[in-house]
């Protein structure tokens, strides 16, 4: 099919709607947030228009640096966990009978219908001492007495991985289904065990998809603010939790906005770095 570049203004017509949506729901709020981040906070009140760097200056402290570092670490850990579990899972899923695939995909899609609050409380119940899975372990004789698994870093990780897992599978699934199954068979005839074939053929052939999945889950996990509060200790709180705290409970909109802007910039920089690294390896 021959495609010609748009000639007249009307040719750009199909782009107007998405452009409008993007402007109304992303550009305008984000611009507002950037503007607010430079405003002056009024003690006990709201804020007044100004152009000060106080909000950013306050942010440059060891405390916030640690929180930012932990947020990024948590997001990366969740992304890696999702991909590490998701690739073998989706690979096996894509090789199973159609009926089994449909059941799994419907189950995974139904997780998406659960809100973060429900996921959080479900896991806090599962990890509790009185009604949690440790009671099952005691019954099975694996533990002496039930104990609480929450609040802890493990609990936060588990719930966040659980929440992001359906997205991981949905992004990996089309690529794995399209992957020529004879590639692994060819690797096996060439002397690679099934496991070796998986790591030397399937994983490298999917490098771009894996990178895209990592970035997507990373961004998704960076925005999580409910699960760290429900299942973690204060040291497991992410920057998103602090932003919520500042914006809603402390009524410090300018400071919350500054943190949000900073978080966006840092994550954009990391995504850019990941893409750049991916391209470098491709060029090689």
């Amino acid at each position: 099919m021959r495609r010609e570049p748009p000639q007249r203004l009307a040719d750009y017509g199909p782009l107007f709607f998405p452009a409008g949506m993007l402007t109304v729901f992303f550009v305008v709020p984000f611009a507002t947030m950037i503007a607010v981040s430079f405003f002056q906070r009024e003690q006990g009140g709201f804020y007044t228009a100004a152009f000060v760097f106080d909000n950013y200056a306050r942010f440059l402290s060891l405390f916030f640096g640690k929180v930012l570092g932990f947020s990024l670490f948590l997001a990366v850990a969740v992304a890696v966990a999702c991909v590490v579990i998701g690739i073998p899972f989706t690979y096996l899923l894509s090789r199973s009978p159609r009926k089994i695939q449909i059941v799994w995909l419907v189950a995974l899609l139904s997780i998406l219908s659960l809100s973060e609050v429900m996921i959080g409380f479900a896991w806090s119940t599962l990890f509790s001492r009185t009604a949690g899975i440790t009671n099952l372990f005691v019954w099975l004789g694996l533990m002496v007495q039930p104990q609480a698994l929450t609040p802890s870093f493990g609990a936060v990780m588990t719930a966040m991985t659980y929440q992001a897992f359906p997205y991981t599978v949905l992004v990996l699934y089309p690529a794995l289904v399209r992957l020529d199954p004879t590639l692994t068979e060819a690797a096996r005839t060439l002397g690679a065990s099934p496991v070796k074939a998986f790591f030397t053929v399937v994983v490298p052939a999917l490098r771009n998809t894996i990178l895209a999945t990592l970035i997507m889950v990373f961004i998704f996990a960076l925005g999580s603010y409910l699960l760290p509060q429900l299942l973690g200790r204060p040291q497991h709180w992410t920057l998103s939790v602090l932003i919520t705290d500042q914006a809603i409970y402390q009524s410090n909109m300018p400071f919350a906005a500054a943190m949000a802007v900073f978080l966006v910039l840092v994550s954009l920089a990391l995504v850019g770095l990941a893409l750049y690294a991916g391209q470098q390896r491709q060029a090689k």
Partner: protein
Amino acid sequence: MSGLNLSHVTKQFGNFTAVNDVSLSVPDGTFVCLLGPSGCGKTTLMRMIAGLDLPTGGSIELGGADITTVPTHRRELGMVFQSLALFPHLTVGENIAYSLRIRGTPKDAQKKRVDELLAMIHLPGFADRSVAKLSGGQRQRVAIARALAISPKLFLLDEPLSALDAKLREAMQVELRQLQQRLGITTIVVTHDQREAMTMADTVVVMNGGEIRQAAAPVDIYRRPADSFVADFIGQTNLLPVEADSAGRASVLGEVVEGIALPAGTAKGLLSVRPEDVQLTAPGHGAIAGTVTFIRDLGGAIETFMEAGGAQVIAVSAPRNRPDVSVGQSVGIRLDPATSVVLAR
């Protein structure tokens, strides 16, 4: 016993029998073509030889050892897939070196072998190219080189040339056969193209319905088909009903043909006559009476279609022996007993 030996190999998928009790002996260094229509079980048989599918019955021996349940990666074989299955994330050189890398061959030995193989497939200096930028024929050669990198005991090719255009395919058939003869490697090719099988194979194995119908040299398959399926599948043939008359002589389409005998105790059969063995003469004098219905002049050969006793008979002649007939004309058809084969009906 060396070579590849299949005995009573059977593969069932649920209630469907893909391969039924196949026994076949392939001596070392021979080139075998598994030939048959799609769904005849030839690919399944090859996959079992490769270990990609496990037989539900029977056993497979290679070089005296039972390999029926040995995993694919320990069978030391080379296989070219129909899709070629070149690894998209590796260069030409890395693709070819894959089996060596998996076995932990030193880097410089890998490089030496890759250069050797690239020279063999007439693509020297292609090591650093991306496989995506190769032409169909080049991809084909790379797939062959990759399969041969470890000098395998057994070289398997599943419809290897089906993606190529007709001219290139014929050239590759000759090249593949010459390569196999030079290396002396036991080779099995799955194909549905009988010209391909005739060009390359020492032994053609004709399969249908999961069973071997005949395994023999190409010329024997063509000249002495074992049954009507083989006769019809290999090349063009006239399958004409033969009946024994009251005196016990064989008659074809109402005329007694001297020199043809039905097996003792049978009254009916089918006579397979290749179109080039059908002779046209004047009607009468003991020739089968026929009427010309169509003439196809292909330039290199002339096909004359005739109707005789309710059956269609095709004769093929070279241009210099062009029969002097026209559509609608009555002709006499003569069959040569020496080149005709009586088959069970």
